[in-house]
């Protein structure tokens, strides 16, 4: 892999926040090594306080590293030159509510030194992409949370960046808003833009990302392709039955239902063969099969099992 193929490089990146009289110093990042290659989408996940936002703030020049190095497109972070080809959407952003969407995007375009003509052309392209074309003359104070997030995403794309960094872009959004953010990320990926984004919505990360970086207690504990992490093996099969009488229930209950309602009962079976046997028996006894759902391994189940069962120290030792 040539140096040109690496868009983000962190080597032994460390951040220690100084303590005060009332507060101990805090190691937020511990010798983090991370590479993001050109054109890939990397999901950055971890529990709250793991160091995701700290990493992003260092990359964006908002915080200074206590140790190690970080580069974007071959330039050291903190330099103005490295930010020329980068777009960034912070977590829970607040924007200038007295500006209209159009004025807002013109402002950010100017910060990249773009001419008025190129700003206009880009704004005409971006507003339909983030689906707020109808609100271009509307002041941001009249925007909903979802619309603000979308206009925030537009400002991150105003300079046609090579790298887009998104900090919790779907945080607090309704399902429609989340879907739109996902669609825009997918579209950027199609255009070959490199994307690094942190998120707690692991199903989105699993669907969109090429690779996943997992950080716990300031330490990178895993950096791998989604397909290498999640094998989509069937972990259990859930069978839901309806319309059964007391006698049937007493027979089937030996299999320990996980949900027992007045009308329906749900069983969790370890594999498909046992599920088939149960369904066969239930049908013989006159019950209706409402659903048979295989539960597969997901990034979320993997993350919850592996990284919430252990203490941060145990995870760091394993890493």
């Amino acid at each position: 892999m040539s140096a040109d193929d690496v868009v983000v490089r962190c080597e032994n990146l460390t951040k220690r926040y100084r303590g005060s009289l009332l507060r101990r110093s805090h190691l937020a990042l511990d010798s983090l090594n991370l590479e993001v290659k050109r054109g890939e989408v990397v999901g950055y996940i971890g529990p709250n306080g793991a160091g995701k936002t700290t990493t992003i703030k260092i990359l964006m020049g908002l915080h200074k590293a206590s140790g190690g190095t970080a580069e974007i497109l071959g330039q050291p972070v903190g330099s103005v030159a490295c930010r020329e080809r980068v777009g960034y959407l912070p977590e829970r952003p607040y924007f200038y509510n007295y500006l209209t969407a159009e004025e807002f995007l013109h402002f950010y375009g100017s910060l990249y030194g773009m001419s008025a003509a190129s700003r206009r052309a880009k704004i005409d392209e971006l507003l339909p992409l983030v689906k707020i074309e109808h609100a271009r003359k509307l002041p941001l104070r009249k925007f909903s949370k979802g619309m603000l997030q979308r206009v925030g995403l537009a400002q991150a794309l105003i300079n046609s960046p090579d790298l887009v960094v998104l900090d919790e872009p779907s945080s607090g959004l309704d399902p429609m808003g989340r879907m739109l953010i996902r669609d825009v990320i997918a579209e950027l990926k199609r255009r070959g833009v490199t994307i690094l984004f942190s998120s707690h919505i692991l199903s989105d990360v699993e669907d969109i990302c090429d690779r996943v970086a997992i950080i716990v207690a300031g330490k990178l504990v895993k950096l791998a392709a989604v397909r290498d992490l999640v094998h989509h093996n069937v972990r259990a099969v859930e069978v839901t039955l309806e319309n059964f009488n007391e006698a049937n229930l007493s027979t089937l209950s030996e299999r320990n239902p996980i949900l027992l309602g007045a009308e329906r009962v749900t069983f969790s079976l370890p594999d498909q063969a046992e599920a088939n046997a149960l369904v066969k028996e239930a049908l013989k006894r006159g019950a209706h099969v409402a659903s048979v759902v295989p539960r597969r391994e997901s990034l979320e189940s993997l993350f919850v099992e592996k990284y919430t069962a252990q203490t941060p120290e145990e995870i760091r030792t394993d890493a």
Partner: protein
Amino acid sequence: MIKIWAVTLNSFREAMRDKILYTLLFFAVLMILASVAVAQMTIGEYEKVLRDLGLTAISIFGLLIAIFVGIGLVNKEIERKTIYTIVSKPVHRWQFLVGKFLGLSATLLVQVLSMGIAFVIMLVFAEAQLSSSLLAAVWLSYTELLVITATALLFSSFSSPVLASMFTIGFTLIGKLSAGLVEFTERGEATSEGFRSFARLLYQAVPDLQTFNVRTAASYGVDVPWEYVLYGTGYALAWSAALLLLASVIFQFREFK
């Protein structure tokens, strides 16, 4: 240059769309117009009192706008985290501060002009004499506001809004009193040499804001030489540049939580 201009325009828009500004301006114009009534209660020197009150109102309300809007301009960006999206762009931090300074300077110019127009209307209404020294006094008040704006930016580059307000008000008071303090100590009325040195140090370390005060001359109708106006303008620009430079150095190292 386009980047500084973008920040300038945005700051100007923000300040001009701020309700506090209009509240202050409303009271300033009210006070200028009310000075007709106050002046009528004085015995003799009616026109002098009229001019003095009007110029003082312009100076005081200009100072209030410079301090409170000036501090708000940077601190609001930090508190609301809009600074994240600016500092992460290819913009030097000094460009951000200079843009903020120019934006507020332009806002103050509009405010001082508005108050100046109200002042002239009041003088015409009261049939008082107009003179070029009044223009010089208003202009020098404006240049003083540039120094205060740079001071407000300096303190808000590293401290909270409350502390920055206190520091800026303190700095302004020292700037207004330091020349008088030095004069007092030089006349030999101070008891200790240490106090004399302290007064001289204050005078050197803080801009002498009395330089911009020609209100007494203007209210008596005494001409203010244009060379002095030029000197005052240069003095304000030099101090503003020095304060902005210091603010930029401090701001460069600031981390945004």
